[in-house]
C-alpha cells in the first residue's frame, strides 16, 4: 500500500523538482557575483583535470641554478621557487590537490554529518546523546581537533582530509537535524508513517531529499573552509608531504623567502584566496536562489 502511494506521487514530484532546479539555476546565474565564482571554480576544475596538458614541466623538477627567479621570467611565467621549480606548474598541479582535498573532506564530513543529523532529528531518543556528542566536538577549537587527529594518524594529506572532515561533522549534523525536525512534522511524512512505510525508506527517500537545499549550500561553503584549513595545517607543518605542490605548503615554505622573493608566498596566497572566495560566493548565491525557490513553491 505504502509503496503504491509513493510511486503514484513520484512522477509529479519529479517534474516539480526539475522545474524547481531550473528556476534555481536561472536565479543563480542572474547573480553577477555567482558567475564570477562559477567561472573561477570552472577554471580550477579545468586546471585540475588538464594539468599535464596545460603545463609541460614537471612541478617537482628542481634546478638549483635557476632558483628564486621573479615573475615574468621567460619560460617561467610566475617565476621559480627556492629549488628552481616552476611556480606556474606547481599552481596548476596544486589546483588538483586543493580540489581533491576539498571534495574528499567535504563528502566524508557530509556522510558523517548527515547520518548523525538524520538519526538525531528522526529519533527523539537518540537526539539527546547525539547532540551532546556534537556539543562536545563543537567545544574543541577546530584546528586543535585536527592537530590531535594528525598527531595520532601521522602527517599526510589523507589524514588532513580525515581531520577536516571530522571537524565539519558537528555543523552538518546540526543543519540536517534542524531541517529534519521541520520536515518531520509535515503532513505527507505523517501520512506515510501511518501507512507503515519503513523508517529507513522515509528517511532516505523523503526526508533527505527535502534537506537537500541547506546541505548543498553547506557543502559549497564548506569547500571554502576545507581548502583554507588545509592551508593552515600545512602552515603548521601538518599537511602535504614534500614535494607535493600543495598551495598552503607552498606558502609555508615561501615564508622564509618572503623578503627576498615575495612572489613565492604571494602567488599561492592569491590562488587560495580566489578559490575560497569563489566557493563562498557561489554558496552565498545558492542560498539566496534556493531560499527564494522555497518561498515561491509554498
Amino acid at each position, binding site marked *: 500500500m505504502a509503496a503504491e502511494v509513493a510511486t503514484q506521487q513520484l512522477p509529479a514530484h519529479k517534474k516539480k523538482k526539475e522545474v524547481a532546479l531550473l528556476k534555481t539555476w536561472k536565479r543563480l546565474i542572474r547573480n553577477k557575483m555567482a558567475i564570477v565564482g562559477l567561472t573561477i571554480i570552472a577554471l580550477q576544475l579545468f586546471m585540475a583535470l588538464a594539468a599535464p596538458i596545460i603545463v609541460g614541466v614537471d612541478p617537482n623538477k628542481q634546478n638549483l641554478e635557476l632558483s628564486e627567479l621573479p615573475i615574468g621570467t621567460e619560460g617561467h611565467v610566475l617565476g621559480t621557487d627556492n629549488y628552481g621549480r616552476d611556480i606556474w606548474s606547481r599552481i596548476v598541479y596544486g589546483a588538483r590537490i586543493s580540489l581533491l582535498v576539498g571534495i574528499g573532506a567535504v563528502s566524508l564530513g557530509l556522510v558523517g554529518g548527515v547520518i548523525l543529523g538524520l538519526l538525531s532529528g528522526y529519533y527523539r531518543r537518540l537526539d539527546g546523546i547525539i547532540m551532546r556528542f556534537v556539543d562536545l566536538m563543537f567545544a574543541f*577549537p577546530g584546528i586543535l581537533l585536527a592537530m590531535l587527529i594528525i*598527531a595520532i594518524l601521522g602527517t599526510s594529506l589523507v589524514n588532513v582530509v580525515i581531520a577536516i572532515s571530522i571537524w565539519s561533522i558537528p555543523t552538518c549534523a546540526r543543519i540536517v537535524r534542524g531541517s529534519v525536525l521541520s520536515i518531520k512534522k509535515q503532513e505527507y511524512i505523517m501520512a506515510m508513517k501511518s501507512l507503515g512505510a519503513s523508517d529507513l525508506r522515509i528517511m532516505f527517500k523523503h526526508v533527505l531529499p527535502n534537506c537537500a537545499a541547506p546541505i548543498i549550500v553547506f557543502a559549497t561553503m564548506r569547500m571554502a573552509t576545507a581548502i583554507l584549513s588545509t592551508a593552515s595545517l600545512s602552515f603548521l607543518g601538518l599537511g602535504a608531504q614534500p614535494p607535493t605542490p600543495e598551495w*598552503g605548503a607552498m606558502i609555508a615554505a615561501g615564508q622564509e623567502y*618572503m623578503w627576498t622573493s615575495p612572489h613565492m608566498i604571494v602567488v599561492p596566497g592569491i590562488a587560495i584566496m580566489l578559490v575560497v572566495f569563489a566557493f563562498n560566493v557561489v554558496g552565498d548565491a545558492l542560498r539566496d536562489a534556493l531560499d527564494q525557490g522555497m518561498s515561491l513553491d509554498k
Partner: protein
Amino acid sequence: MAGLIVRRVFQLVLLLIGISFIVFMSMHIAPGDPASIIGGPTATQEDVEAIRENLGLNEPLLTQYFDYLRGIFTGDLGFSYQTKQAVSEAIINRFPNTLNLAIASIMVAIVIGVTTGIISALKHNTWFDGLSTVIALGGISIPNFWLGAILILIFGVNLQWFPVGGLTEPFWTIEGMKQLALPAITLGTGSAAMIARMSRSAMLEVIRADYVRTARAKGVREKSVIMMHCLRNAMIPVITVIGLNFGFLLGGTIITESVFAINGVGRLMIESIAARDFPMVQGSVLLVATLFVLVNLIVDIVYAFIDPRISYE
C-alpha cells in the same frame, strides 16, 4: 534563568569530563614518547627509561587517567612533563595574553562587521553594498597566517608604525593597543566578515518584516524605525554569530600567536602537543573548551534580555 544556569553548568562538567577523556586517550595513543623528547636525540635507552619511570608513564593508562581526574576535582591540573612547572601556573601566566588578543580581535570584528553590515542593508543594492559584500567575502577567504605575514611586512618593517611582535601590555594602554593592532586585525578579519554578512541579512529581513512596515505606515520617523524596531531585532542572530566567533577566535589564536610571537595559551597548546607534554595539553584544552561553553551561555542569557519572547523554561 537560575534553572538554565544550573543545568548548563551541570552539562559543562559532563562535557569537560568527556573532553578530558578524549584528549587524554588521543595523546596516549599518538605515537611519540614524552620521555624520549625530554631525553633528546642524544639520550640512551637507560636515560629514557629512567625519565619514563620518573614521570609515572609506566603506570596503567586508566590509573593515570583517574589520578588525573581526581586531581582536577581537587583543583590540581598536574605538572608539566617538560618544565616541571604547575600547569595551572603556566596557564595563568599566559591566559591574559590570549584574552587580550581575543577581546581586541572581537572588538575589531564587531566594529567593522556590524557597521558595514547595517550600512549595506540600509543601502541595499547600492555600490557600497556591492563593494562591502565583495570585501566581506574576501575577508573570510584570506588565510590568516598569510595576512599576518603581509601586515608585518608592510606596517611593522617597512612603515614601522607598529611593533612586529610580542605582547607585554594589556589592550587598554597605548603601548598595548599598538602591540595588538596587527594581530587583532589578522585574527579579527575573518570574524568581521562573518558578522558583516550576518548583520546585513538579519537587518534586511527585519526591514522587510510586517511590523516594520506597519510602523512606517503609522508615520513613525525613519530613523527611529531603524533604531527602535530594526536594530534590536536584527541583533539577535548577530549576537549568536559573535558568540560563536569568540570561540572560533580562541581557536584562531593558535596560529596568530605564533606569527606575532605572543606568548598565549594557543601557542602553549601547539608546543605542548609537539612535546607530548600531556598535562599541559589537557589543561589548556580544558580551559579553551570551558571558555567556549561559557561564552555561549552568556550569549543565551543576553538573548533572553534582548528578546523577551525567548524563554528557556
